[in-house]
């Protein structure tokens, strides 16, 4: 019993992963699978957002790194003939490197200024990719190569041109990023991250180099966002600058907040998946509901459950104890 209690979050996470593995077999409808893929991408972004929140930064520009990853991988494939599989890594690294370069400069700033800077940066990225011909301009990039078949020992040649097969690629990416960020969050690193917004001076006086840790968190989050972005490039086959408008970054924030700040990995997974599922359903009903939905959700969460859905069990327990 005690083992379960101690590792409850970890076990829930593994349980969820198992469910995710079986999901497309239970719901084989390609549209559904497409939605699940959307959930996965959103989850990775939301996890990164929460990771950055740990160090005290509210990022309003996460989609910029989705874009950087996507465009890098797409262009590598189109112009240099690089395999999409390598492109995944390439997209991640491009995002990571940009995050590194920016981080060492931006992360010295705190609070609202930093949020505004992340937002402005995202807009800069969006404007550049929608203006310069090299990035395809307003129309974006079309005909991006899909994932090429792989020779997997024991299985033979596996093709990846169906939503189902791509779903499992994303699932693998999700698992890797989720586990990586979960491990980071729960280790001494995560502890150190959390100390910074509480009392940065004290942290320094205990030997913690604030910028180093802020950059580690930021680069990790953006690296995985970049990998996710590269995945979307090769899955959808097109990239369109309109996907990276500020509203999308705000949606990431909402998803992360709804999920819960208690656990980076679980909160991101929960928030991202749940919101995308509702959003997909609403898009079928009437696209205009999406704005109202997200707006209402963030208002509700702000007033009723500011620490997200993950804090619900704790709050219910408290009410229970009072009764």
């Amino acid at each position, binding site marked *: 019993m005690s083992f379960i209690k101690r590792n409850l979050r970890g076990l829930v996470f593994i349980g969820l992963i198992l469910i995710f593995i079986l999901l497309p077999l239970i719901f084989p409808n390609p549209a559904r699978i497409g939605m699940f893929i959307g959930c996965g991408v959103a989850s990775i972004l939301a996890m990164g957002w929460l990771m950055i929140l740990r160090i005290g930064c*509210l990022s309003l520009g996460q989609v910029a790194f989705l874009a950087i990853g996507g465009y890098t991988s797409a262009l590598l494939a189109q112009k240099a003939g690089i395999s999409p599989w390598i492109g995944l890594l390439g997209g991640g690294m491009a995002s990571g490197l940009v995050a590194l370069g920016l981080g060492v*400069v*931006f992360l010295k*700033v*705190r*609070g*609202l*200024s*930093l*949020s*505004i*800077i992340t*937002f*402005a*940066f995202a*807009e*800069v990225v969006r*404007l*550049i990719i*929608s*203006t*310069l011909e090299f990035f395809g301009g307003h129309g974006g990039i079309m005909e991006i190569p899909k994932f090429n078949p792989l020779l997997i020992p024991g299985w033979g040649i596996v093709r990846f041109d169906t939503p189902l097969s791509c779903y499992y690629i994303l699932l693998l990416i999700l698992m890797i990023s989720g586990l990586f960020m979960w491990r980071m969050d729960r280790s001494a690193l995560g502890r150190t991250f959390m100390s910074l917004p509480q009392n940065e001076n004290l942290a320094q006086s205990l030997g913690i180099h604030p910028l180093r840790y802020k950059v580690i968190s930021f680069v990790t989050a953006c690296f995985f966002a970049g990998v996710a972005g590269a995945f979307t490039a090769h899955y959808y086959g097109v990239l369109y600058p309109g996907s990276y*408008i*500020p*509203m999308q970054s*705000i949606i990431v*924030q*909402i998803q992360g*907040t709804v999920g819960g700040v208690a656990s980076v990995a679980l909160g991101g997974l929960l928030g991202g998946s749940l919101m995308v599922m509702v959003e997909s359903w609403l898009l079928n009903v009437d696209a*205009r*509901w*999406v*704005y*109202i*939905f*997200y*707006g*209402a*959700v*963030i*208002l509700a*969460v*702000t*007033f009723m459950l*500011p620490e997200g859905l993950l804090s619900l069990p704790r709050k219910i327990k408290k009410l229970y104890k009072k009764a």
Partner: protein
Amino acid sequence: MTELMQTALNCLVLSANYILLALGLTLIFGILRMLNFAHGTFYICGAYVVYALVQKAGVNYFLATLAAMVVVGGLGLLIEALILYPLNDKLKVASLGAILGVSMVLEGVLSFIFGGEDVTIGSYFKGTIAIMGATLSRERIMVVVLCGLIMGGVYLWIRKTRQGIAIRALAENPKVASLQGINTRSMRFLVMGIASCLAAFAGAIVTPLFYINPFMGGGLVFKALLIVAVGGMGSIEGSVLAGFLIGFVESIGVTYLGPIAEVASFIIVIAVFLFRPWGLLGVEYEFH
């Protein structure tokens, strides 16, 4: 010559628009210590009230503008009472999230009522007049004049009236101001109301000139943010100066350099917030 004057006029229209928005933002920031990300949506709401009344109900344009100011002003007061004041002592992220939520809900509602496509109403001040040999649109000139009048009014109000002085005191040092008997709660309402009115007015008077759609608010508020950043949070003069600057960069820059000029504006924002978060003309203070 005509082209130059027309470009100058366009620049003025843009600047005037931005300045009105920036004034409201700066007022709100000074008193509520919050960046009103819904400000652009107030602007759009104002525009839509005018559109609805003029286009659908045949109401006179001036009356419609006044109605827009009243409606959106009321909206601002409601938001302050129900959302912003209760969240006042929570973390800033809470009010940030909440105001974003408000803006999204408003945009969604607008898109339900009016649809998502661009709409406009026809010019009110039709025709052109000739100044110094250049043909200039009457509408645009009136817009600039009216904006100028309103700006002048706001400036006088801030500088000369008791309330205006109280607001400046409150913005500079809330604790001391409240010890002097300034009622923070009513000041918040006042400022929120006036700022939303300004936004509504700005939106209302450009409805004849531009196309509007429910989702323009986002882009606008970010421009206004830029202006407030560059000009200095809480600085009226700064907002005016920066408004001219950004309006100039955008109209001239975009005409001659293309959309990449917009990138320059955002890079300016980044630079300002990195090195001088209190803006070029603002008063240096602890920003967070």
